[in-house]
């Protein structure tokens, strides 16, 4: 079907990303999931092509593309490997983007080129053992000691944590100021006191090196503060608004993969003398899956389009992420069902899509949090 939001550039982009992913990532996607291995050999090839700086300015070595291009890229990568789509989405939208949006020109020079070219990988460190959805409940601290911040932090479930060099750490610079006392400092791997914890052993997205990142009396240079003190919440929300489009696109890609696999299987597998696709029960499932995926696509692209139009995107992004993640859950669940026993076996890809989809309803804002956002935006002033 023709797409209302996309132009020629987006078509060319989609074809090129798909071709690269099918050539380089698809042959190893199942294996890296099984082994929980981050495929450096492919990531290193993605850097010069612009995958790590999709929207970063060309002069920094990024690709300087728009939000729709970003959504399409993440969608196509995630269609082949949700874990790698996740890596790129987090790197681009919640690590690199906040530095571009809130950093000083000097900070741009310091961090952006290496991140945009994929020479370094970024991460977003907010969640703590006792602060998930309740982000304002973080207890990490940054004490002003003149020349540097003394940072103590215990950040968990950091996507890309096991390989990240440049980490945005959310800390309390003013313990008495509540949410307004939260700031963001950029900490670099290799700084004394910066410890990367063990990799998490997760149900899905297993090729992504999720780990804890702990800072023990870590001295972070004063000018590693992003923006001003007290801007942490603002930076976090802006980052997550952008991140939502990426994660929604990721969920969409996974759902599309599950749908494609199910269509292919339903056309080949025969039971009771006919292909599965001739049985109404299967037809009803495929119809629901196709409609869900298409609706999710329209919402994701619309949110990206609004961003490109420089319009407020909070509501659209929250809805897109909520819908796409829930759709991915339903579509991947039906995909396993359509495949029957084979859907439960690692010999087929659908069980990986099913496992990968599950977390999309949890991270970058749980579905419950997004419902709160949508309710608030919908009910206010009416």
């Amino acid at each position, binding site marked *: 079907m*023709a797409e209302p939001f996309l132009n020629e550039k987006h078509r060319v982009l989609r*074809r*090129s990303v798909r071709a690269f992913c099918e050539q380089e990532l698809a042959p190893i996607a199942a294996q890296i999931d099984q082994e929980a291995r981050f495929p450096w050999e492919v990531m290193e090839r993605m850097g*010069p*092509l612009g995958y790590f700086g*999709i929207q970063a300015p060309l002069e920094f070595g990024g*690709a300087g593309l728009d939000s729709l291009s970003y959504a399409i890229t993440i969608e196509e990568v995630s269609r082949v490997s949700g874990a790698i789509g996740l890596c790129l989405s987090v790197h681009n939208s919640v690590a690199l983007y906040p530095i571009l949006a809130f950093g000083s020109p000097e900070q741009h020079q310091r961090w952006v080129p290496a991140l945009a070219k994929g020479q370094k990988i970024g991460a977003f460190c907010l969640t703590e053992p006792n602060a998930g959805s309740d982000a304002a409940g973080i207890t990490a601290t940054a004490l002003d000691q003149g020349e540097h911040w003394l940072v103590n932090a215990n950040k968990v479930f950091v996507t890309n944590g096991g390989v990240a060099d440049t980490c945005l750490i959310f800390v309390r610079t003013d313990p008495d100021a509540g949410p307004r006392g939260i700031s963001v400092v950029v900490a670099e791997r290799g700084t004394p006191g910066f410890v990367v914890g063990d990799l998490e052993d997760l149900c899905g997205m297993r090729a992504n090196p999720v780990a804890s990142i702990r800072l023990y009396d870590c001295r972070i240079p004063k000018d590693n503060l992003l923006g001003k003190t007290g801007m942490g919440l603002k930076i976090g929300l802006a980052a997550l608004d952008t991140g939502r489009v990426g994660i929604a696109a990721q969920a969409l890609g996974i759902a599309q993969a599950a749908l494609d696999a199910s269509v292919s299987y339903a056309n080949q597998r025969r039971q009771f003398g006919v292909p599965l696709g001739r049985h109404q029960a299967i037809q009803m499932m495929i119809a629901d899956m196709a409609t869900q995926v298409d609706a999710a696509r329209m919402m994701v692209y619309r949110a990206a389009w609004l961003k490109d139009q420089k319009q407020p995107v909070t509501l659209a992004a929250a809805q897109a992420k909520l819908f796409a993640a829930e759709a991915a859950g339903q579509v991947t669940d039906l995909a396993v069902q359509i495949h029957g026993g084979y859907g439960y076996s690692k010999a087929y890809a659908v069980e990986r899509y099913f496992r990968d989809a599950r977390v999309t309803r949890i991270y970058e804002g749980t579905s419950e949090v997004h419902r709160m956002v949508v309710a608030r935006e919908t009910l206010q002033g009416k």
Partner: protein
Amino acid sequence: MSVHIIVCIKSVAKSAPRGVARRTPENSELNPFDRPALEAALQIKAQLGGSVTVLTMGPPVSMEVLAEAQAMGADKAVLVSDRALAESDTLVTSKVLVAAIKKIGRFDLLLFGTRTADSDTGQVGPQTAALLDIGFVSRIKEIDTKEGGWEIKRTIDAWEERWHIDAPAAATVDARAFHPRPVGLVGISQFYVQPDVAQWSLTDLQLMPQEVGLSGSPTRVAALEKIKRNRKCEMLAGEPQAQVENLIARLTARGALE
């Protein structure tokens, strides 16, 4: 040393459910056989210096393949497009390409893919070379400069041939000889920042409508009929060992095994 290489590429239809290939934005792509030709050109340019011009004749959607080619590293792009060109056969296509090549100017090497994924004739490369009256070698595997010309390697069966060909020369590139580089996001973005494609119609090439299209084509596809394959399915009986022996005997009898 600095060389100018022209690579002719084509936007091809991805699928043709009724046999007729219709190129639309949703159903077109860069001819997979052209990518190794592009790669060869880019490698020669990297080695010797110079420039690569990509040329395509086709409907407006062909702009997309020029975008990919420039994203890969081609320097200049030319699109020859005109309604009157529709339904041109390979000879007309070659004549049009020749007119465009002459307008582009001096070149040292003219490269093509071995064939297209939608028409599969393999004729345009050699026909264009013949009309230009320049030397042509098919399915080149390696190429290097050599005193006023090119040294080319190609293989036939168990033999490797080494050819010398004077410049300017034309060649089709063996699809397995050059592994095409991926099209990157940076390249695509740079193209669309300021698309720089020369667009020529028939008048720009001083060609008349009656020389091209269906009326100008000495060959035309008269009919298309889908081949029906009658497949027989036979279930072999007995224990697996017996079935295997039966199968081997049958395959040997048919010449599939020795």
